[in-house]
């Protein structure tokens, strides 16, 4: 596909403020970049940092978290909890070589449809400048150094019939979902 690259943003919006604001933006027929995918949560406090990184490792170029303004959380203080996580997460991401622009926390009240539009457009512009993150592609690139040997062995196995232990590579991004083992 010759389509020009557009950043992909996964957004986690709280049900009461930012999701509603995005609804308002819709009802008001505001126009904004189409590359954002909103996932509704009840509160920004539900945003597990794992969600942010899971989105990035699965190919998102940016993650936007939207919650109620400080003091306005429907659940009193869930947004503060997200804010505290975000402060350290930003540092961790920086240390891991992920640009600051890729993960953003915004307070958007239910009345601020225009802010939804402004933030999404602004973030899209910033990400256009920063460029693709492409973690799945990077992982693939990294793993070329080991897939070579694996393929060699697999080829050998196919030839030397009878060997049934073709090592199936466990995809690194998908954590091993081992069953509970009590010993």
């Amino acid at each position, binding site marked *: 596909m010759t389509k020009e690259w557009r950043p992909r943003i996964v957004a986690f919006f709280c049900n009461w403020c930012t999701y509603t604001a995005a609804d308002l933006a819709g009802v008001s027929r505001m126009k904004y970049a189409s590359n954002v995918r909103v996932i509704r949560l009840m509160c920004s406090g539900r945003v597990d940092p*794992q969600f942010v*990184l899971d989105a990035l490792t699965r190919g998102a170029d940016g993650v936007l978290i939207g919650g109620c303004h400080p003091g306005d959380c429907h659940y009193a203080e869930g947004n503060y909890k997200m804010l505290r996580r975000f402060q350290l997460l930003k540092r961790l991401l920086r240390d891991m070589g992920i640009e600051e622009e890729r993960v953003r926390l915004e307070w958007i009240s239910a009345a601020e449809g225009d802010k939804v539009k402004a933030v999404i457009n602004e973030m899209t512009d910033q990400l256009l400048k920063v460029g693709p993150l492409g973690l799945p592609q990077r992982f693939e690139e990294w793993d070329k*150094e*080991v897939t070579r040997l694996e393929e060699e062995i697999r080829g050998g196995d196919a030839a030397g019939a009878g060997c049934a232990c073709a090592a199936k590579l466990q995809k690194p991004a998908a954590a091993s979902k081992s069953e509970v083992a009590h010993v």
Partner: protein
Amino acid sequence: MSKPKVAFYWCASCGGCEETIVDLAEDILGIVEKVDIVLWPVAMDFKYKDIEAMPDKSIAATLLNGAIRTTEQEEMAHMLRRKSQYLIAYGACAHLGGIPGLSNQFSREHMLKFNYEDAPSMANPKKTRPQLKFADGGREPTLPELHHVVRTLDQVVEVDYYVPGCPPTPKLTNVAVTALLENRLPPKGSVIAPDIALCDECPRKASKPVNTSFTEFKRPHQKLMDPNLCLLAQGIVCMGPSTRSGCEAACIRGGMPCTGCFGPTSRVRDQGLKILSSLCSNVAPKENGEIDKVLEGIPDPVGTFYRYGLAKSLMRRKVNLPVK
């Protein structure tokens, strides 16, 4: 009936896991009685070609420790996988990448340069580096190549079970080996340790107040620690709440916080992010500046939260490093 064949192998590791085998003490005799050790480079002399000559699946179980860092380790992992019925990732490095996994914060060139040129203990005026090939009296010996990325065992070959820990405790090792010998095996892919966080068996569990919120974080050397009080209640980062139990809180009993070598529970995809989420949620202040001030007490989040788990984390490696 011949005794089942068992192999021990080490890749990128410190040798501590091998120590654990020895630490089985008398128990090892019982094991040795029941099995034939076909490979154990640290203790006995075996040749690669001997293993290569063995029929596929002829080894009952291989306990492999260490991360996969070089082409040789990669090759051995593949070969042992082929020769073994069960491949067990033994210890934190094989399970999670372990301490070697921390070098996923740096490029290969950076590591080589530091180790062969810049390290304060290094005397190498000619800046000689290991060569992949060299000529020696008409022969051309080769050395394995260092990979750019440190990997867990299961990022290279399929793994049947994991015995966690840095190193695994003799008790868990015994449990694993006994389970193998008696064929009482848990579902494939299991980590041979309880699927509950460490606090469950922590001697200081009861001392943690229910309303612990953090106004500062201190590192162990910065504080005179109360030997009985929960370390988190003292503002010391302890990974216990997000780490599998099974070690019987060895570090905490020794006066040091848990650093997470047993890895996450099965319900967690990224141990570091989960402890981050938990600790930060309970930071006391509400303003950015004050929050940051509290979090200054964690100067190196990657090193703190991914001491053993970086290679296995969602990001695996600092994402902007080269592979060339």
